[in-house]
């Protein structure tokens, strides 16, 4: 399934992700890492701790709607894989980010921005393995 190169939208979207990360550090002093935020909802350290995490995730899920109010277009979600793959892959993502203590947002954006060697190691690993997985599923097994 081909998708169009969208340099302008992707750059602006990336800048917004960065702005949100900086604002979360400025207001709550927290890393904008999806893994850590959701993990804290499942095992909250208290009511106040649980509330800000839920508010943040509710805001994230309102993002596509807010964008639609501005652009008039609904966010495209094209899933080119089976539901069985989604379930197995979802489990792998959940277990992996817990052991790896972060994902694309936590390690790949916030950690790299702090020049953390640990986040650099994690980011290089998951980027390489993701590329390898896509190569294998599309060109070795599926090719």
């Amino acid at each position, binding site marked *: 399934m*081909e*998708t169009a190169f969208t340099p302008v*939208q992707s*750059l*602006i*979207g*990336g800048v*917004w*992700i*960065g*702005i*949100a*990360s*900086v604002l979360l*550090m400025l*207001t*709550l*002093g927290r890393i904008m890492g*999806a*893994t850590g935020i959701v*993990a804290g909802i499942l095992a909250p350290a208290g009511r106040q701790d649980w509330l*800000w995490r839920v*508010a*943040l995730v509710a*805001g994230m*899920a309102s*993002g*596509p709607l*807010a*964008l639609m109010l501005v652009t008039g277009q609904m*966010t495209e*979600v*094209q*899933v*080119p*894989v089976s539901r069985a793959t989604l379930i*197995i*892959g*979802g*489990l*792998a*993502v959940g277990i*992996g*980010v*817990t*052991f*790896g203590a972060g994902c694309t947002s936590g390690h790949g954006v*916030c950690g*790299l*921005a*702090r020049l*953390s060697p*640990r986040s650099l*190691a994690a980011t290089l*690993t998951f980027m*390489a393995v*993701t590329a*390898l*997985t896509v190569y294998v*599923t599309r060109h070795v097994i599926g090719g």
Partner: protein
Amino acid sequence: MRLLTTYLIGVIFGAGIALAGMANPAKVLNFFDIIGTWDPSLILVMGGALTVTFVGYRVVLRRPGPVFAGGFSLPTSRVIDLRLLGGSALFGIGWGMTGFCPGGALPALGTGNTDVFIFCAAMLVGLMLGKAGVTALSRPGASLPFKT
């Protein structure tokens, strides 16, 4: 005020993810498919997000503390071990299979797409399994069945 601000920060993040194309698995997978249907858009997402965060953190972390909390909660671990790399590799397998990462999938929930809910449900189960695994491994006397 604190919760409303946090909610709005979430909206900025979610709208950014949606506009960038990170909520679209087909686009994310194509970024990694360089010899196939390559779509380089995600370089600009990472580049934009990283540049703003790098500069912004340098300004914000010079303050004595955040606006609504007592201090900055920054990760202190500096260990690069098998747990970090193995976990990241497993995350890469799941991301490469599905095209969803946690930060992409949570905003995508807002589109109402059923597949996103299926992925997120599985991811939540994975987060709980992972937590149980991490807890078991960090018990005194617990060790991995291989040398780390």
